[in-house]
C-alpha cells in the first residue's frame, strides 16, 4: 500500500474539485446558506404567522338562543370574538373559512342556567384549521368562565366553600433539563440535516471523479499511469469523504450560528414567550461532537456507495439518474427517526441511517445509551467497509471502467 500515491491522487483531486463550481456550491454554499435560511427564515415566518393568527379577532356566529338575552348580550360584549349576524349556511361558511366558528345556544339557556337544569352548548369549528382553533379556544374560555361563575353563585347561595367541587388543584412542572426539552423539540431535526448534507456534499465530487472522468475521457489517461487502481480509488474516496465531512461540519456550524441569531432576532421582535421557548436551545458541544462522530462512518458509507454507483455510469447525466433514487433511500429512514414515538431498539440499531438518526436524536437531547452508541457505530463501520470494498473491487473491473 503506497500512501504516497494515494496522497498524490488526493491532492490532485482536491485541487481539481476546488476549481469545480458544482462541487463548491454543494460543499460550501449550500450548507452555509441553507441553514440560516431554514432556521431564521422558517422560525421568523412561523412565529409571524402564528402571531398574526392569534392577533386576529375571529368572526363567530350565534345559532339559536333568541330567548336568552343575557348570554346573547354577554357574547356581544365579549371582545375576544367578533359576532356576525346569523345566516343559515353557517356550516358552509366555516368550511369555506369565511367564518371561524359558530356557537349553538340551547333553547331557554338563561332560564335553565338560573334554574340549574343541565344543557349543552355546541361549538361548530373547522378541525385542524389554526384560526378556527383560536376562535374555539376563546369561546371555550368564555363559557368556562360563565360556568365557573354560575357554580360560585350556587355555592355562595348555599353557603358552601368553593373547595367542595374543586377538592384539589392540578399543576404541571417541567423537570427535564433545558437541553432535553430542546432536544425533544429539535432532536430529530439536527441529525437529519447533518446526515442529509453529508450525502449531498459527497454527491457531486463522487460523480465528477468517476462518471465525469469517463465523460471527459481522462479515465484512460489516468489508467495508463503506473498508479494502481486501488490507490486511485482510495485517493478519490478520500476526497469524496472530505467533501462529505466538510459539508456536514459547515452545516452544523452554520446551524449553531443561525440559531443564535434567530433567537436574538425573535426575542427583539416579539414579546411572545412561546417563540422564546421554542428557540431556547441548549445543545452541548459534547453532544454535537458525538453526533458528528456517529455520522462519520455514515459519511464513509455514503462516499464509497456514491463512488461505486457513479463509477458504473457512463456519463454525468446517467450517474445523476442512478443517484437521485438514493436520496430517497437515505431521506426516508432519516425522516422516520424524526417521527414522534420512534424509539431505538436492538433491531433498529442495525439499520443504517435510521439507527444513526435515532441515536443522534437521543444524544442531542442529552441521553447517552453507550451500548447502543457502540453497536450503531460498529454496525455503521461494517456497512462502510463493505461499501468501500465494493467500490475498490468495481475499480478493478474492465467492464465497469470501459462500459460502452
Amino acid at each position: 500500500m503506497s500512501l504516497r500515491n494515494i496522497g498524490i491522487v488526493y491532492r490532485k483531486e482536491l485541487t481539481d474539485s476546488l476549481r469545480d463550481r458544482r462541487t463548491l456550491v454543494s460543499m460550501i454554499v449550500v450548507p452555509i446558506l441553507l441553514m440560516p435560511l431554514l432556521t431564521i427564515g422558517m422560525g421568523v415566518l412561523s412565529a409571524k404567522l402564528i402571531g398574526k393568527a392569534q392577533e386576529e379577532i375571529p368572526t363567530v356566529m350565534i345559532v339559536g338562543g333568541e330567548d336568552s338575552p343575557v348570554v346573547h348580550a354577554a357574547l356581544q360584549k365579549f371582545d375576544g370574538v367578533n359576532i356576525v349576524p346569523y345566516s343559515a349556511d353557517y356550516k358552509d361558511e366555516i368550511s369555506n373559512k369565511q367564518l371561524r366558528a359558530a356557537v349553538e345556544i340551547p333553547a331557554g339557556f338563561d332560564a335553565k342556567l338560573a334554574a340549574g337544569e343541565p344543557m349543552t352548548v355546541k361549538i361548530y369549528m373547522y378541525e385542524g384549521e389554526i384560526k378556527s382553533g383560536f376562535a374555539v379556544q376563546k369561546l371555550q374560555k368564555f363559557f368556562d368562565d360563565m360556568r365557573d361563575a354560575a357554580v360560585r353563585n350556587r355555592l355562595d347561595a348555599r353557603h358552601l366553600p368553593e373547595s367542595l367541587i374543586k377538592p384539589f388543584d392540578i399543576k404541571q412542572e417541567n423537570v427535564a433539563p433545558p437541553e432535553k426539552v430542546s432536544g425533544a423539540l429539535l432532536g430529530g431535526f439536527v441529525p437529519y440535516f447533518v446526515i442529509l448534507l453529508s450525502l449531498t456534499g459527497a454527491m457531486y465530487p463522487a460523480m465528477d471523479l468517476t462518471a465525469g472522468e469517463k465523460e471527459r475521457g481522462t479515465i484512460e489517461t489516468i489508467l495508463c499511469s503506473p498508479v494502481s487502481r486501488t490507490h486511485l480509488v482510495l485517493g478519490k474516496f478520500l476526497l469524496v469523504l472530505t467533501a462529505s465531512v466538510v459539508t456536514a461540519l459547515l452545516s452544523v456550524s452554520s446551524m449553531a450560528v443561525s440559531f443564535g441569531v434567530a433567537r436574538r432576532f425573535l426575542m427583539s421582535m416579539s414579546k411572545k414567550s412561546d417563540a422564546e421557548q421554542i428557540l431556547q436551545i441548549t445543545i452541548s458541544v459534547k453532544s454535537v461532537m458525538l453526533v458528528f462522530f456517529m455520522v462519520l462512518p455514515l459519511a464513509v458509507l455514503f462516499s464509497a456507495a456514491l463512488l461505486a454507483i457513479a463509477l458504473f455510469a457512463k456519463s454525468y447525466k446517467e450517474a445523476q439518474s442512478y443517484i437521485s433514487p438514493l436520496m430517497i433511500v437515505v431521506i426516508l429512514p432519516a425522516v422516520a427517526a424524526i417521527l414522534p414515538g420512534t424509539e431505538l431498539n436492538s433491531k433498529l440499531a442495525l439499520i443504517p441511517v435510521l439507527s444513526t438518526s435515532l441515536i443522534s436524536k437521543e444524544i442531542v437531547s442529552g441521553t447517552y445509551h453507550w451500548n447502543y452508541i457502540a453497536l450503531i457505530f460498529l454496525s455503521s463501520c461494517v456497512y462502510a467497509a463493505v461499501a468501500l470494498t465494493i467500490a475498490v473491487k468495481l475499480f478493478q473491473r474492465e467492464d465497469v471502467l470501459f462500459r460502452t
Partner: protein
Amino acid sequence: MIEARNLVKNFHDKKRGEVRAVDGVSFTCQPGRIYGLLGANGAGKTTTLRMLATILEPSDGTAIVAGYDVMKEPEKVRRSVGFLSTATALYGRLSALEMVEYFGRLYGLDEATLHKRIDSIFARLEMNDFRDRRCDKLSTGMKQKVSIARTLVHDPSVMIFDEPTVGLDVMAARTIIGFIRECREHGKTVIFSTHVMSEVEKLCDNIGIIHNGKLLAEGALAALRERYHKQDLEDIFVEVVEP
C-alpha cells in the same frame, strides 16, 4: 522492445454475447523502429494496444513490454510506457504544468528530477507561454503538446500511439507525426495504430494488418509490396482483408 505473444481478448456483449476482439495476435517491435498497426474500425487495434499498455488484461496469451510481462508486472510496464491516443484527454481544471507534474509524480519521479525534466520538455515543445493556463482553455494544438509532455515526462523506452491523429486538423496532426519520428530517432520502441494509409507509408518501418481481431499480414512495406505484387498500400490492405 515489445513482444506480443498470442494475445487474446474476449468481451461480453449484451447483444452479441461473447465477442473475441483480439484473436491470437503475435508480433515484435524493435527499438528505434516504428511498427504500424493498420486496420479498419473495430478490427481490434485499440484493444491490442490497451493490452500492451496494461489498461486491459489479456484473456489469454501475454506480451513482454520493455522487458516486463504485462500479466505479471503491469505497474512496471506502465512505468516504461508512454501511451497517447485521442481518448486520453487532459484534466481541464488543471494547468498544463500541474497536469504534467501530476503524472510525473505518479511515475515516481522526485521533485528535482521532475522539474528538470519538465523545464527541458516545456522548452523543447515551446510550452512556456501557456504553462500556467488551464487545460480547458488551451487550443487543440496546445493540448496536443501537453499530452505529449505527459507521455514523455518519465522518459519511457516504449511509446504506444492509438490513432493519435483522429479528429485533428492538419497542423496538430503534423505535430504528432513529427513527435513520433522524434521518438524513433531517440531509439524508442514505437507502436502506432491507424486506418490512414498515408501515415503508415510515411512513418512505419514495419506494418501489421489486423482484421477481425487477427493479424493477417506483417512485414516492411517493401516486403509487402513484393509479396502481394501491388504498389499501393490501400490495394495491399484490401487484398489482405478480402482475398
